[in-house]
């Protein structure tokens, strides 16, 4: 049943087709991503009004929140790719895991750094053991674990499968970790300041936030395309089409 349901996806699972498809999408995605990200951020930085409580420091929201959201989004998509790759033995999905992991790790690092930079003026310290920040930190460790595990095997194909399994184990654990940390946080009464105390956010602040959110999503897609192309080349390098392609590119360059 499952096999026939996803038959229409077959051409995309063919590495060569996917390589060229990614190559075709990459410039559009990248241009669009940079344009939306810059639009959202410049709007947020220069044109939206300052917050009545936090002043101009709140403008960090325009990267902190999108990067935090997409750090988790990237983990979910990585885990979904891992699941598809392992259950249906679709190799491009396994390669996508390796393509996404570093991007997700960078997004998580951004969310952490901007969170700290926001925390300093708000709470007076760079780091508080707030539930969200702690979960984000654990997420970074999970990403680093997947990356480290995938590189620890002399046979790359093996590393990628084991790392996919770890990604799935991680995604099962993430909600448990998140709620544990939240429970722990309420227990210890550490930082109870929530960053979004306001139930509704003014449209003049919301729009640039949504645009920045879209921008980072597009950038995630664009970078995934770029990195997936590299993975396809690595794992298909014995195929004639890769040899031809690489030769052609070399001739074009020289």
């Amino acid at each position: 049943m499952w096999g026939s349901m996803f038959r229409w996806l077959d051409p995309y699972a063919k590495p060569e087709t996917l390589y060229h498809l990614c190559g075709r999408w990459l410039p559009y995605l990248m241009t669009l991503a940079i344009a939306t990200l810059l639009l959202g951020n410049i709007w947020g930085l220069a044109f939206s009004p300052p917050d009545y409580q936090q002043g101009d420091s709140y403008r960090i929201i325009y990267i902190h929140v999108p990067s935090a959201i997409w750090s988790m989004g990237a983990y979910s998509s990585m885990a979904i790719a891992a699941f598809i790759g392992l259950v249906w033995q679709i190799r491009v999905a396994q390669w996508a895991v390796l393509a996404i992991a570093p991007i997700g790790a960078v997004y998580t690092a951004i969310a952490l750094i901007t969170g700290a930079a926001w925390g300093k003026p708000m709470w007076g310290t760079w780091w508080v053991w707030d539930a969200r920040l702690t979960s984000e930190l654990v997420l970074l460790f999970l990403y680093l674990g997947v990356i480290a595990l995938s590189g620890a095997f002399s046979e790359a194909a093996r590393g990628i499968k084991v790392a996919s399994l770890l990604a799935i184990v991680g995604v099962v654990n993430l909600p448990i970790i998140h709620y544990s940390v939240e429970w722990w946080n309420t227990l210890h009464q550490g930082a109870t300041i929530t960053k979004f105390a306001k139930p509704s956010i003014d449209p003049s602040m919301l729009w640039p936030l949504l645009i920045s959110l879209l921008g980072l999503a597009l950038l995630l897609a664009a970078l995934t395309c770029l990195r997936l192309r590299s993975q396809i080349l690595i794992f298909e390098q014995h195929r004639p089409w890769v040899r031809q392609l690489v030769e052609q590119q070399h001739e074009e360059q020289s």
Partner: protein
Amino acid sequence: MVMWRALVQRELQLLGRQKADWLNPLVFFLLVLSLFPLGIGPEPGMLKQIAPGLVWIAALLSVLLSAERLFKDDYRYGVIEQLVARRQGLFSYVTAKICCHWLSTGVPLVLVSPLIAVLLGLDWQSWQVLLVTLLLGTPVLSLLSVLGAALTMAADKGGILQALIILPLYIPLLIFASGAMEAAATALPYTGQLAVLVAFLLFALALVPLAVRQALRMNVG
């Protein structure tokens, strides 16, 4: 069942021959525990306050370290490869490994808990809670450690890598186990935390053996 008994017997025979595999983690555990008072001072009040976190961090480190070599020999001598080709006995093998790992590392920790209570100045009530959390938590520690060992079995670098991938997964256990002990120390109800520990145990028991089997297959495939 006959097969499973034979597999457990084999693990026990191996443990009998390689006593360092389960004695060293125990010594490590006690050693780490006795380092803390030396590092932060011996005031009983202070020790009592940090005891829950301390015991649990020492426990998870020692269980994690003990699991590192769990599959290495069987992998090196081709046992795992042939079990994977054989398919049938693999799941029994995994569960036998997990059981014996808990027997050889979790149970000793439970048994030395009176000693811990003495070292850290815990009262009767706190010791009881410590005992219960150890009984409920160490199987989960074993399960996750075995998973870490299985994932990194064929990896070129063991040790630290295994810790890196498994320690984040320990966080919920650490929070609730030490939470229960803290609650007990301040005379608050702690049955909720224990219930969560039971839930973790059942959840891990249901899923981890399957994941371990899959990890072993991938490591030889």
